[in-house]
Structure formats: structure tokens, C-alpha cells
């Protein structure tokens, strides 16, 4: 089971975090800081896996973003790399050549897509088509709704 997934930039800024186990906020921050430092210190050709506490860390860099997952001893490292890749593909398809900015400005979408792919730390749907279908259905529901606040929200938020 995956315990958490972190997305962070080359500058060490956390862009997305998803926790599948309950930890106090303080611990989450500590873990995040520790892992970001560890991973950013690693060289490009190094192995994508490392042992950390009693977990295995699997990470991969896509452009300016690092994707980092913590999995348990019995989980499969190579396939976790492909979970990351599938997630990147989904973001890419959804945003159209996804970049870091898309994830910053639409972090909630990034969460919704992740929730379709993984649930409770386990893979839920591996078919790209099916995940995109589910997200499209959600968007459709939104578009049917009239944005009431449209006029009073011209940058005055």
C-alpha cells in the first residue's frame, strides 16, 4: 500500500501532497522536509529507489517536478514508477502538455484526478481511458451549473 505521494519542485517547493495514512501535521511536515532534501541531493543517474525508515521511496523527476511515493516493504518498486508515469500521463492529457503551473493553479483538479487513479493507497483504475472518462463526467456536471458568482468575482475576490 502506498503511504503517501509528494510532488515538489526542483527548488524544493511542495506542490501536492497526498497522505494515505493518518499522521499529525507536524510529522507530515518533518517527513516532507526530510525527503525533499534527501531526493534533491541525489544525482540524475542514481537509482530511483531508496530505503527510508521502514519504507521504500520511489521517485522520478518529470521536467521541473519531482514525484515521490512511499510504499511498504512488500510493494513493487518498478510498478510504482509506472503509477507515477500513469498519473503524469493523465495530467498531461487533461491539461494538454501539463506543466508545473497547471498543478499550482489547479491543484484541486490534480487531487481529483489522483483520487480516480488511487484510492486508500491502492491502485483503483489503471485504464487511462476510464479515468479520463470519470473526470470528464465530473467536469460536465460542473458546466451544467451556472456560475452564479461570475459577475462579482472579476478579480475582486
Amino acid at each position: 500500500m502506498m503511504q503517501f505521494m509528494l510532488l515538489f519542485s526542483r527548488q524544493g517547493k511542495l506542490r501536492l501532497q497526498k497522505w494515505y495514512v493518518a499522521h499529525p501535521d507536524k510529522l507530515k511536515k518533518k517527513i516532507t522536509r526530510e525527503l525533499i532534501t534527501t531526493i534533491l541531493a541525489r544525482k540524475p543517474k542514481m537509482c530511483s529507489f531508496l530505503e527510508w525508515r521502514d519504507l521504500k521511496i520511489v521517485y522520478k523527476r518529470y521536467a521541473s517536478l519531482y514525484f515521490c511515493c512511499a510504499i511498504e516493504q512488500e510493494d513493487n518498486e518498478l510498478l510504482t514508477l509506472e503509477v507515477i508515469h500513469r498519473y503524469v500521463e493523465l495530467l498531461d492529457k487533461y491539461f494538454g502538455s501539463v506543466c508545473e503551473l497547471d498543478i499550482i493553479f489547479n491543484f484541486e483538479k490534480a487531487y481529483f484526478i489522483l483520487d480516480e487513479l488511487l484510492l486508500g493507497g491502492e491502485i483503483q483504475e489503471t485504464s487511462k481511458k476510464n479515468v479520463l472518462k470519470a473526470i470528464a463526467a465530473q467536469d460536465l456536471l460542473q458546466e451544467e451549473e451556472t456560475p452564479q458568482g461570475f459577475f462579482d468575482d472579476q478579480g475582486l475576490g
Partner: protein
Amino acid sequence: MPAVRGDGMRGLAVFISDIRNCKSKEAEIKRINKELANIRSKFKGDKTLDGYQKKKYVCKLLFIFLLGHDIDFGHMEAVNLLSSNKYSEKQIGYLFISVLVNTNSELIKLIIQSIKNDLASRNPIHVNLALQCIANIGSREMAEAFGNDIPKLLVSGDTMDVVKQSAALCLLRLFRTSQEIIPGGEWTSRIIHLLNDQHMGVVTAATSLIDALVKKNPEEYKGCVSLAVSRLSRIVTASYTDLQDYTYYFVPAPWLSVKLLRLLQNYTPPAEDPGVRGRLNECLETILNKAQEAPKSKKVQHSNAKNAVLFEAISLIIHNDSEANLLVRACNQLGQFLSNRETNLRYLALESMCHLATSEFSHEAVKKHQEVVILSMKMEKDVSVRQQAVDLLYAMCDKSNAEEIVQEMLNYLETADYSIREEMVLKVAILAEKYATDYTWYVDVILNLIRIAGDYVSEEVWYRVIQIVINRDEVQGYAAKTVFEALQAPACHENMVKVGGYILGEFGNLIAGDQRSSPSVQFQLLHSKYHLCSPMTRALLLSTYIKFINLFPEIKTQIQDVFKQDSNLRSADAELQQRASEYLQLSVIASSDVLATVLEEMPAFPERESSILAVLKKKKPGRVPENEVKESKSPTPVATSNHNNDINASSTNQADLLGLSTPPTSQPHNASSTGVLLDVLGDIYSKPNNNVSAQNSSWVIDPKKFVCKNNGVLFENNLIQIGVKSEFRQNLGRLGLFYGNKTTTPLQTFVPTLLWGDDQAAKLSVQMKSVEPLLEAGAQIQQMINAECIDDYTDSPSISLSFVYNSVPQKITIKLPLTLNKFFEPTEMNGESFFARWKNLGNTNQQRSQKIFKASQAMDLQAARTKMLGFGMQLLDGIDPNPDNFVCAGIIHMRSQQVGCLLRLEPNKNAQMYRLTVRSSKESVSVEICELLADQF
């Protein structure tokens, strides 16, 4: 600003842009505080906010939280959003709650109703939103509230596939929180049959759930094995076009395959039915075959997915550990990966081979790759890969290659990464001890470790080399010589000084005959390091010096001068000051006899598992630092237990190492310090077994092994360790029993009772001090026993120990090491008087006793000699014409008489027999002494 799909929130985007434009951290905080004040006033204001506004503000709060700031309001607004009839508002509400609400929050009660409503919705998208929220929070309240609904949703025929997927994983999450929510009975088969579902996504999700259920109750879910094998078989034989969107870069359903292979690793053997087993083996073979095929794509995704399945298949093959053919094939495949250009593959191959090395079928096959692995250890660019190589070398090490592997590891250690040195030191130390056939080699290896990586040699490692040297007479001289040489290096590590100090203090006399290492030279050499060392080491050296006074009286004044120095006698360090003044006094007032007794050579340590191994295990929980070839497997599914409840090393008081930390006043006092010593060097590090047998058990222990020794571990099981230290003078004896609680729970109503009849007590009177009836977790208490020998007796007293562990009563009966021979005083005599007495005592049959018995162990005269020495009589060398024979003399002290006793033990190597003859002035004594010694060889 990037385009936003669906229903974007412009205010949010502006806020995010503002934050990004902030030039400094302070500016960012200022902007955030401004926004927080704004939102707070909006939420508090009179004007009721509409759904969109609430959504927007909640979303801003979420963003602020994700930036790492604390959010302490807005929860109620988010909860309100859940009941909105607009999907986008509902969704943001759920997101906020999933991210921000802790499992134990009061808010959970409020949101349960909203979730219930959505769960009952006819729109599957709403249902899924609710399920995702339950899975994200997964608290106990959630389990209680939805434990009934979700299983129904999962197996109902009306449920849509997407909902089933979420329901399966949601149930899994709740099951992990509270195991009782899964209904049994007919549900079991319905859940298992999800493996046959048409929809691959449903099967994938359900397999995760079933895997967890199986771990809890393997028997009940056994039916899943054949279904899983069938499903797997269909996937591995499918072409990549068959599974459409579930094919990932030309690999058919890699996620499902891996999950099924994982599921099957819960059973041993994976399938009892030979048909199923055959099909499974075919699947595994097919996967191995496919690994040899040319790749269908050059993309790394293809190779990752394909190899993910392959590695999982190999895991299963290793888990089953029954098909030699598959194990060897797996090993060959991994061997190929060792030189693959992908670092990830090399890393995983090394890791997987570690497991193969522990199987008797593939251990030899793994050893073929030794060269490559050694190269990996030396050449890999990535330290985590080098680490795996070290682990593998450790796992593949056995008697045949130990010297080479240890040597390579030592070579590498000189340049090894700091991060792995300590662990490597532990590994080298363990291997050297485990596979030493010649203990001089072991001593060399450990001293090399200290030389090369002294900073990384932990206490356990150097304690251990001392334990071993003390226990093995044959290396003591060599060890003394080697440490002496090592200390001559201009710069030597403080750990070397510690080991050197200790060993020379005990065995310096063995090399003192050589002028180059005369007592004075030894002392000068050690003392030249003294001022560079920490107080701890100095304290140890002071103990060495006092031991030198006993070993080498000729340098007494030289040493006393050192004790007298202001830097010692008036040291700011209380421990040093105390030692210096007490040792000085001791050396002045004690007679040489007293010195010899107080500063006697350390007794042998009880043989036990190396404490270093336990340290290694503790360092790497969950990992496999195995160096043991397994032979059989347990038929139960693998239970997860990874907590070390070590009775920890709190008492690692180094000062006690020599047992001299307390002033050696009167003799019996020594018992207490040696009690600590047992602990410091012993079992506290070894991990108590987790599955403590909690049945009501009763034990009776044979005391025979204590006939020839006075100290050691009398009894040990998972719960308790009982050590003993005893000493005897004339007809009096004093025993210290040390009870150590090895568990993490207190042992209650802890009562030792003496079993020794009145008629026997008239011959040997025994008094036992009482102890507290409670033995705290991890604690040790001692009990003193006094004995007086009044007349000769047979057998020895027992104690019956009863206590309650986890409300289960336990009872242990142990014989005390209080046999008649303990009251022996050794008597020195020459050949002439020996033979005169021998003849004299042989006159009547009543005075002698003889036994002829078969050797119960390999005839080892050295070992026999050690035992004879421990028996208590004086061993007389050069009296018997046959040098193999042992001849002894001694006097047994009783209250009103003394009984002289002579003994002769004749080993017959050809017949593997011994003849033991005992002659004394009292028949009953001869018989008992003969009886006691007869089974010892």
C-alpha cells in the same frame, strides 16, 4: 495564467498569482494574513454567502494550508458545502475535509449524514465522491457508520463498475481501521468471486481487498487461490491486444498480475491441489520465458512494467521455495540484470538475490555471481546500489567463501561511504565470528575493523571480541600479542586502546616473557595513550593498571605513581578520582593473596547469540539482513511483526565492563557487579522472541551443566532469564540469582520457593532471601541464597518459580548449582604423596567408586581439562605416567569434618570411553562425586 477548465475560480487564481509574485517570505506571509483576515470577516459577516463564495474561500484556505500554514477555521463552511446541490461545491467541500480533517476530529460526526445522503444517491459520481471521502479519512467512526452499506454496494448486482471499484478499496481502508467490519459467511464467497468479474478495473481493486482479508483469515478465503491462478493464467497467455486499455505499453495488465502474484504469496504451498499448482508453475515459467524475449518497445515504461511482473513472479518463486528448477532459472535471470545498464534493475536484482541466497535450492547458484557482486560493491556509482551489494555478499556468505568475502568487505571499508560503514562493520564482525574456524583469524579481522573504521566500531563489536577472547583459551596469547603490536602504531584509535587495555589487563602475562613486551613495556605503551583518551577509556585503563599490579608485582610502584598523580587522584571526573584512590588503597593494603582473588581473570561469559546480530536487526527493521539458509517453511501465512521490544541497552554502563566499578570490598560483594556484567555483555541486546508462548508451561531444568562451573545463565526462555553467580569458601556458599524479565509486561505474583526436604536440609542448610513479588518489564532483580554444608549429601536443592505473565500462570523448576563438589578445596601434592594416599584409600571397596562410561560428545581433552578445572579439585599434572589421564585431589569441607578425595579420569580414545575412579575416606562421598562427574564428558 493557464486556462482553467470547468468552473474556474478567478479570485483563487488571482490570489495564487499574488503569492507567486511575492518577492520575499515576509511579503508572502503578509499577503496570506491579509487574505485570512478577509476570509474570516466574510465568514463572520452578516451577509450570508452563497455557495460559490463559500467554495472559493474554502478553496483559498486549502491553498494556504498546502503552502504549509495552519488553518484553524473554515471547517464549518466546508461541511456546509457537502450538502450543496451543486456538484462543484460539494466536491470542494469533500476535498477540504479529506485534506484537513484529522481522523479524530469532532467534525466527523457532522459529515457522516452528508456522506450517507450522497452514498444513497442515484448518481454514481456522487456515490464515488462519498466513497473517496470515507477512504481518505478512514476513521473508526466511518467504519461504524458505513460498515453495513459498503459491503452491500460491493457485491450488489445493480452497482455500477466504477462504484464497485471504489467500494472495494473503501472497504479495504475501513478494514484496516477496524477488522471486524467485514461480514463473514456467504459474503466470503461473493467477495472471492469478484476475481472472476468481467471488468478488469473491478478485479484489480478487489484483489487488493482480498489480499488484506486473506492475511487476516487465510483458511476462510482459501478459495481465492484457484481463481487467482486462473485469472493470472489468462493474463500471461493473453496477447497485448486482448486486454485493450488494460494493456500498458504492450504488457497485459501488469498491475493486476502483480497483485495476483502478491495474493498467492499469502499461502504456503500456494496451492494444495496439484492441478492448480501445475498451472501456477506454468504461469511462472511463461513469465520467465517472456523475460528472454526481445522487448516490444524501447520505452522504459515497457521494460518497467514487464520487469515489475517478473520480479513479483520471482518473489513468489522464492516464497514457495519448492521448485528448484524455477529458483535456479530466477537466479540466472537476476544474474543477467546485474550487468544491465539500468541502475534500477541492478538494484532490484541485488535485492532479490539476497532472498534467493537464503534458499537451499538456489544458494549455490547465487554464489556463482560473487565476482560481479564484489565489483558492484566497489564500482557502483550509487551508494544505495552498493549497499544492496553489501547486503547480498552478507547473505551469500558461508563457510566456503567467508574469508574471501570478509577480506573484500574489509578492503572496501577503507573507502566506503560514511553512511554504510557502521552497518558494514557489524556485518563483517558477524560473519567473522560465525564462520571462524580459527579464532586468530577472527581476532585479526576485528582488530583490522578497528584500525580501518574505528569510529564506526560500536561497543557491541568490541565487547564481543573481548567475550570471545576470554572464552577461548587458545587465542588469548595471540590476542595479547596482536593488540600489543597494534598499539604500537603512532596513531591508534581509542577503541583499539580499549580492547588493548582490556586484553592486556587479562592476558598481558602471556606475552610478558618476551623482553620486547615485558610488563614495563606493556604498561608504558598503554600509558602513552592515556592522556589522549576520553575519561571512559581512562577509567578502563586504570582498571587494567590495577590488574597489572596483580599480574606483574615488579611494576607496582610505577603504577602506584600513576594512581597518585594529581590528574587522577584529584581528577575532576568523579569516576576517575574514585578509581584512582580506591585502586591505590587496594594496592597498598591488600596482601598478594587478596589481590590475586579480587583481580582474578574474568570468568567465561555464557555462550549466547552474538549481541551484534541484534543490533543489526534493530538497525534495519523490515529488511532482510539474513545470513541463514532456510530449510523448511512454516505453513501459515506470513504474519507481520516488526517491532523490537528489546529490553533496551539502558544499562550499557561501560564502567561496569570490568566488573570493578564498585569498590571491591569484601568478596561476596562481587556477585552484584558481575550480575550487571552479565547484562552489559549479554542478552539485553538479543531480541526476545515476539511470539512468546503464553500457555501455562512448566519446566524442569537439568543442573548438570553447572557441576563444573559457578556462573552463567541457569535458565532462559522467551519470558525470563535466570543467571547465577556463586562462590564458596570452606563449607559455606553464597549464590546470587538474577531474574531478568525479557518481556514488555510485568511478571506478577513472582514467587520463588525452595524445594529441599528437611532431612536433606539437615545436611545442607539453605537460606533464601525473599524478593519483591513483581518483576517489572525489562527489569532485573537479584536474590541471594546462603548455603552451609553440614554433612555430605546427594543431589542438589531446587527452586520452584511461579509467576503470572499476561494472566497466564507460569511455573519453572530449576536445580540450583549447589552440588557437593562445590565445597571442594583444591589440594596440591606431589606424585609420591599422591600415590601413597591413593594406595592407602584403595584398601577397602567402601572407599572407592568407579564408573566406566561412553563419551557423550567428541573427545576433546582440552575441553575436558577446562571442565576438570571447574570441578573444584586441584588438577595435578605430570603425576600420571599417561599424559592423557587426569589426576586430581581435593578436600570437601563440612561443618565438623573434612573429607579428602582423589580422582583419576582415564580417557580411552579408541573405545571412546572414559574410566573414572574416585577414592575418598568416606564411601558416600566417593559415590556422589563419581555420580556428579560421570555424565560430564
